């Protein structure tokens, strides 16, 4: 989700080469430093180390898929900045969108390219139960948690007793809600369960999601070269003391000035966390028209696992407000979430279908808008060609490369099964 470098170049993009020091300082102060990771009151264990350890164990556990072929790490590969390096995700079939990175994912307002989830913990069921992704199901997950002594112990320390699934007539081995294509026996099994039993399974699913969310919040990156430059500049060192190359420094001024990139890539996260028409043509003609936010807004508002739902730990807070007030109208058709540009150089290819292999291609597109495609009428007209020179394009790319930084706590990216012979660390403590 954070992969594409959406360099929005805006109407009225009059050349503003050479920002005054005062103006540059004012604009820099909006981009750096980053605030501390905000708490997630909808997830009571969001910052619980025990939950993060359980979540990490599950993240790398391929038993979440029925044939043991897929774990979360299959597509979100730590060696590839938690992406897969492909244009389109490869699950059991080729999906229609690109795998987003998980770096700094704890800071996202919405998840997925269409924002169909409003929290890290609620997004789990989408990849888990999608027939062309992991193709797992929540009953199998519940049986895994309750039958694996280590997992069960970790779970129960956090959330209390796990459900008793010993009655196979009440709790089949596999079940998940629909609707889906054709007659899915797992959907029928789910519909055969009592509402109370379904609720107990949904609670477990939400709790597992909260553990995975606690782990993913650990995937935070350190300050980048750009942050170091901003700290020096705002501290009075107008030279930046070599923290950015000359090319990157010029690229920064283009980013803030002529390109007006901060219209959408604003604030310390370099994203407005919202949705826009990016006019990028689809990767190929076989891909269906992407409804984007038009569908995503409806899905998240109706999601029983959203911030205002029964499984949220704060049902009347700001996050619940965000989702309850969402609009969903035709203007949003085709809108795609603005990705953060932090670490963008590590997450090629770019855009929601991986349309561009390199940052150079991305910048060239927004410089010319050659091939831009509108999905209909009555939609946003934010984009205009930035008309960068070739040298300016290189400078802007140099700036984008200055936004990379390693994980603050790299040990969290290591598969604990490889470290401790398949045991959750909790057990050895």
């Amino acid at each position, binding site marked *: 989700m954070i992969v594409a470098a959406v360099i929005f170049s805006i109407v009225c993009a009059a050349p503003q080469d050479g920002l005054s020091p005062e103006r540059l300082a004012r604009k820099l102060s909006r981009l750096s430093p980053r605030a501390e990771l905000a708490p997630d009151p909808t997830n009571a264990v969001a910052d619980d180390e025990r939950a993060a350890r359980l979540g990490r164990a599950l993240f790398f556990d391929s038993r979440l898929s029925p044939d043991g072929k897929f774990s979360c790490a299959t597509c979100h590969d730590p060696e590839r900045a938690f992406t897969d390096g492909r244009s389109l995700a490869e699950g059991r079939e080729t999906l229609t969108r690109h795998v987003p990175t998980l770096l700094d994912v704890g800071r996202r307002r919405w998840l997925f390219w269409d924002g169909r989830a409003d929290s890290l913990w609620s997004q789990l069921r989408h990849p888990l139960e999608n027939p062309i992704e992991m193709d797992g199901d929540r009953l199998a997950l519940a049986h895994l948690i309750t039958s694996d002594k280590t997992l069960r112990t970790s779970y129960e320390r956090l959330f209390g007793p796990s459900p008793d699934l010993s009655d196979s007539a009440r709790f089949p081995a596999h079940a998940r809600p629909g609707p889906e294509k054709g007659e899915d026996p797992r959907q029928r099994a789910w519909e055969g369960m009592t509402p109370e039993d379904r609720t107990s399974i949904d609670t477990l699913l939400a709790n597992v999601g909260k553990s995975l969310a606690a782990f993913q919040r650990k995937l935070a990156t350190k300050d980048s070269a750009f942050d170091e430059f901003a700290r020096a500049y705002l501290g009075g060192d107008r030279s930046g003391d070599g923290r950015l190359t000359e090319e990157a420094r010029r690229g920064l001024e283009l980013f803030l000035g002529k390109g007006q990139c901060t219209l959408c890539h604003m604030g310390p996260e370099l994203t*407005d966390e919202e949705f826009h028409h990016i006019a990028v043509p689809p990767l190929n003609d076989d891909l269906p028209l992407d409804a984007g936010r038009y569908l995503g807004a409806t899905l998240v508002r109706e999601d029983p696992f959203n911030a205002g739902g029964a499984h949220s730990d704060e049902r009347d807070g700001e996050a619940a407000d965000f989702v309850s007030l*969402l609009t969903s109208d035709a203007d949003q058709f085709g809108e795609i979430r603005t990705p953060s540009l932090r670490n963008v150089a590590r997450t090629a290819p770019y855009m929601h279908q991986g349309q561009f292999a390199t940052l150079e291609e991305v910048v060239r597109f927004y410089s010319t808008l050659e091939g831009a495609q509108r999905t209909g009428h009555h939609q946003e007209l934010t984009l205009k060609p930035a008309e960068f020179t070739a040298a300016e394009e290189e400078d802007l790319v140099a700036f984008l490369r200055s936004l990379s930084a390693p994980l603050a706590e790299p040990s969290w990216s290591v598969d604990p099964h490889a470290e401790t012979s398949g045991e959750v660390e909790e057990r050895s403590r």
Partner: protein
Amino acid sequence: MRSFLLCMVAFAACAAPPPRFSFEGDELPTNDAAWNVRWRTEPAEIPLNAPFQIEVQVLPADGSHPPESLSLEVDAAMPQHRHGMNRLPRMVPLGDGRFRAEGMLFHMEGQWELYFDVTEGDLTERGQTEVFLE
């Protein structure tokens, strides 16, 4: 005595002051000047890409008291970008023509148009102003 009291009540009613705006803020008329709309934001400076509220008071331009059936919708859009907000604010009626629009959010810098749609009976009138956010 009874007629004296009735006279006093009638006098008091006649002497009731015309409705006044109950807070300081920007003021504008609706498009056919039937209503005056006064508004202010909380916080006073609209934050970029963060929720804020608008307090609104609507008063009839003829000086009468606002009817109970008066309703108000608040919305906003960026005309240059041809898009609006990504959310619809929650309208909380506060009585006497006052309302609070909760959950406003301007997610981009630039020129926003702010719309106050006042509805009474079958008629809706719009008060409109501009806000520049940077």
